[in-house]
């Protein structure tokens, strides 16, 4: 029985005259870890934005857990179990690392307005749980020592991990990572690979990774799709993509690093 958690079918998106995503079809089974590669401007981030409802597709369907979500608003998609990190990092710089994670975590420990202003009812219990589970997540990504530090002051590598912790705090069923290794050195990339693999296993989290760093994609993704000019031009396991590499190089020029 194939449990398709995500199903993108003939997605199209135009921005003015630019056909950013063209007849894009892609599926993910629950629990998969897959990669999406392609040069800058290929449309990879646009695909993420379409899934999360930031843009709506001109045509095509997006199904998440068998439900059509292409017309849904962002917060509706997120509350159904999707989480995403950003190419350019979108932390809340003035809040502490802990507060960043708590802001995401609170979606699972809700209480109402009356309880909020009176500190009555579920307030105490839920606030405690929000705080504790957030600290646990920070520990998991190795950021517990800097929990009370303003997110904007953290070193770049820490900020990337924080964003991942924040995404995990949403307890998603589908995790979209947008260039998580951007700006990292080889050592940090190795740590990141380990982290992504661990998270994927421990949480049984369906994960889709956009990346340029071939060291990340080739090592951890059993299945990879390649985009260029909005279209999917190849899809397969790392060996297949590598062999395709010659053809890819013709399309992608110097963009793809030699593995």
């Amino acid at each position, binding site marked *: 029985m194939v449990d398709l958690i995500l199903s993108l079918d003939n997605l199209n998106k135009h921005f003015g005259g630019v056909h950013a995503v063209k007849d894009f079809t892609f599926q993910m089974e629950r629990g998969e870890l897959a990669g999406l590669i392609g040069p800058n401007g290929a449309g990879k981030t646009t695909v993420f934005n379409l899934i999360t409802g930031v843009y709506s597709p001109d045509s095509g369907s997006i199904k998440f857990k068998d439900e059509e979500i292409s017309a849904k608003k*962002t917060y509706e998609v997120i509350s159904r179990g999707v989480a995403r990190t950003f190419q350019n990092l979108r932390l809340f*710089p*003035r*809040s502490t690392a802990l507060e960043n994670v708590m802001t995401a975590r609170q979606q699972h420990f809700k209480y109402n307005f009356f309880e*909020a*202003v*009176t500190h009555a009812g579920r307030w105490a219990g839920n606030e405690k749980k929000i705080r504790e589970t957030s600290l646990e997540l920070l520990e998991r990504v190795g950021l517990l020592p800097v929990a009370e530090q303003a997110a*904007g*002051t953290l070193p770049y590598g820490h900020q990337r991990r924080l964003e991942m912790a924040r995404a995990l705090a949403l307890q998603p069923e589908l995790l979209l990572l947008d260039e998580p290794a951007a700006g990292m050195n080889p050592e940090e990339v190795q740590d990141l690979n380990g982290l992504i693999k661990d998270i994927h296993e421990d949480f049984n989290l369906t994960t889709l990774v956009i990346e340029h760093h071939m060291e990340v994609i080739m090592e951890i993704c059993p299945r990879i799709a390649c985009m260029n000019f909005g279209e999917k031009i190849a899809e397969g396991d790392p060996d297949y993509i590598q062999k395709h590499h010659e053809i890819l190089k013709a399309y992608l020029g110097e963009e793809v690093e030699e593995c």
Partner: protein
Amino acid sequence: MISGYIEGIIILICVNSIAAMGVSLLTGFTGIFTLGHAGYMAIGAYTAAILSVRHDVPWFAAVIAGGILAMVVAYLIGVPTLKLMGDYFAIASIGLGETIRLILENWQSFTRGARGFPGVTNFTTLPVAAAFFLGMLILMRFLINGNYGRAFKACRDDYIAASLLGFKTAHYRVMSLTISGFYCGIAGALLAGFLTYLQPVMFDMNKSTELTAVVVFGGLGSISGSIIGTAVIGLVTEVFRPISQYRMLIYGATMVLIMVVRPEGIMGQYEIGPKLIRAIFSRKTENGVNNAHG
């Protein structure tokens, strides 16, 4: 005990602080810049005045009614206008604030217009003002230190990231405006009970600007900052009363100076408490906060 004059200043600071708290929630914590909140004070003030003077409504109920009506108007205005971002909403707020004032000024039969509305009982005594001040302050602190506070701040710092964390940002923005309307309404109603006399011109753009200025001056994202800002402006107003034509000049110049020298305001985003003490003694963190501000 305390002289009537000093008592009056304290009452005024308490009442204006309540309005400042409301604006602080909207501008400091939710990132929505407003230049028309005196309009909500006006609604609260006139509602309380008319109810208590013409319809013999007990003052407490009249004050609450003022707050509620202001809150409802804020909600009705908020739903369509809060999709505007940044400058656009600020400009809309000017328009709305002025419209409210103009309506009050021109609806002579109801409000007596520019001639003024006299005869409100002096129900805002020091205990009353202090009690409202403390009560509203506690409610605000509780609200900020929890899930709603975090939601507002998320909408402020990055509304796209906030929506991608599952927040219905429109909902929180409207909520913030609605609550701020309530606070300004209550403050306006209490002001009516203190001055015993109302004129629409008391709630013009100068008052709106003053509300926003004290919040910025005190520090966006700090309730204690807004209160300190209100107190400072209140005292400065009194001290410079003999040379009141210079008062406005100094006040305007202060606004400019703060923005140039220390835009994060007196308190930055700190509240009075242990974190602040730690921050003062730890240079690194303070610089970090300033950098992250950019």
